[in-house]
């Protein structure tokens, strides 16, 4: 992948369709996602939010029979191009999952494993400290780096997963409902952390929690099933979060964000 810096956008989709077999789970998505901003994808259950998110780092490749048409451009290069290695894509676009999923290893190794397999040559101790500081976890775990990651609380585990992701220095961090399995206080800490992270990273977050989207994101994409009854999800409105929540263009967005949906 070349580093042709496109000045405004971190990632861009062009006429993107995502299929499972012959079924188009997501259709016709055109988005330009800004650098160092938080973009939220919201919408009702089953409208393809996670599918869209996972298309950004080719995690859908593991679903047999799934494929994509259209383009996702990172630095002007199509992530689904013929000569693109999905492993390299995932190195550039990290991911934090819905349920905290640290490796069953020590806290230290949770950070260093990704670095090691990707051929990191710097100082591991520094990398661990910086990554954990970056995820606002350092002070809580600095004395027990060799302890199992499973000894941490759910919220700490999720921040460890974030630290693990920033340790491999991606350009973009995808977050798939990162706080949905956490209590309100842990959720708040993750949200604060996201504000810190966006200084260095572009963040795309899927959330089913509209308040969360309103609190943390700069841009919001509203997804909804297509009106034609095809059960295919699409982005019906994408603009600044403020606008989506105060002055949406689409009637369905308005119904959804004001709780009148359904």
């Amino acid at each position: 992948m070349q580093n042709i810096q496109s000045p405004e956008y971190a990632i861009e989709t062009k006429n993107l369709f995502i299929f499972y077999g012959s079924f188009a789970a997501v259709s016709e998505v055109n988005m330009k996602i800004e650098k160092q901003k938080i973009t939220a994808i919201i919408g009702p259950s089953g409208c393809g939010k996670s599918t869209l998110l996972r298309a950004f780092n080719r995690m859908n490749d593991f679903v047999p029979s799934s494929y994509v048409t259209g383009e996702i451009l990172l630095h002007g290069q199509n992530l689904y191009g013929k000569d693109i290695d999905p492993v390299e894509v995932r190195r550039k676009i990290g991911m934090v999952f819905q349920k905290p999923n640290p490796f069953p290893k020590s806290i230290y190794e949770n950070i260093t494993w990704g670095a090691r397999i990707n051929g990191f040559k710097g100082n591991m101790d520094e990398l661990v400290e910086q990554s954990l500081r970056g995820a606002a976890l350092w002070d809580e775990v600095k004395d027990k780096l060799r302890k199992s990651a499973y000894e941490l609380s759910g919220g700490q585990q999720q921040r460890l997963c974030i630290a693990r992701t920033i340790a491999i220095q991606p350009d973009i961090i995808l977050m798939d409902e990162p706080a949905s399995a956490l209590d309100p206080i842990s959720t708040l800490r993750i949200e604060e952390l996201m504000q810190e992270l966006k200084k260095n990273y572009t963040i795309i977050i899927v959330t089913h929690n509209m308040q969360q989207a309103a609190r943390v994101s700069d841009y919001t994409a509203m997804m909804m099933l297509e009106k034609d009854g095809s059960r295919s999800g699409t982005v019906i409105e994408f603009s600044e979060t403020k606008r989506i929540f105060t002055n949406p263009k689409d009637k369905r967005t308005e119904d959804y964000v004001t709780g009148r949906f359904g």
Partner: protein
Amino acid sequence: MNPNRGHYPEGEALHRSLNGRYRSASIWQALFFSALVVAILSLAALLYNVMDGAFGYVAFEYKNDPSEFTAKPLDDLNKQELLDILTANLSSGAFKKLENDKAMEKRSRPDLYTLVLERLIQIDTKQTWSMTDSILHSKDIKAEAAAKYPKAKLEFRSWLTPVFLTTPMSSKAEFAGVRTAILGSLWMVGIAILFALPIGTGAAVYLQEYANKNFINRVIQTNINNLAGVPSIVYGMLGLAIFVRALEPLTSGSLFGVTDANGRTILSAGLTMGTLVLPLIIINAQEAIKAVPDSLRQAAFGVGATRWQTVWHHVLPNALPGILTGSILAVSRAIGETAPLIVVGASTFISIDPDGPFSKFTALPIQIYQWTTRAQSEFHAIAAGAIIVLLVLLLTLNATAILLRNRFQKKY
């Protein structure tokens, strides 16, 4: 009010309906309990039957009286005195042959004692009694033995002794042991596991992590499941055709300069057992790999790992306890198998320890089978002893499997 409400029993009717439900519940509970009782009883009967044979009274005579060889009671003799007796009374040919097997000076006292008994005094077992008879009717037995065999000694004997475990096969039941059979069994399952564990794990990794869910792979999967149920004698035929006959240069060791063996070696038996347990190991390993949660794979892929790095660093280490448990259970199946060994050609009489993959061999189940087919009752007694050895071996293996599973069980 909802009209459906009227259709439910109330008051007295409700109680009657409840009582009926409890009654059928307790009937079912009693049925399940009796199923358990039947299972426990049959296991207890099995154990009792084996124990019954392995202990009990024996009436035996000395063909040559000990006083012909020594003035002192036999049990009081020390090593040197025993050796002197052997030197004085054995023919020089027989003495040399024993000396060749193992230098007489280096033999232990129990060893020499056994030799004196076996070669010079010579025991003639007249009759054996079961454990139950020996305990319940000991007076009758004593009277019967005194009447029938006036010269015989009567003693309560455990046929399962440390000596029984450490002596090789003998044509006389009193001096036979299971040492060669235990070693043969261990060699065999060792070879089987060395062969089947890597191949089985590899196949399982491929099927779980790499194979697409297409028609061919589904056919392969179904066939592996079916192979696990194929009767073991069929594997014996396979082993005979392939390992003993077709691959004879390899399995007899003639390719490696071993000249005195045919294909009926421990290697052939081990490979046959390996093929027998291969489907079991594949299925067990697949289950273990399936049990590794997907979230772990996604975590690894999410930080830019390749498929192989994910499998090697995360899937396999976390599936390992399960794979090992499955393999131990497969081994305990192999160690008890008899039919394939008969077909592959286990020797029934071997008194030399197996010393390599190209040795002739025998195994515990073969030994047990052979002894139970003999007419003399003392052979049935040592067969019972050997069965206890085999059962203890099996229980140890299964207990190891359970311990491994409990120890390494991970929470994700």
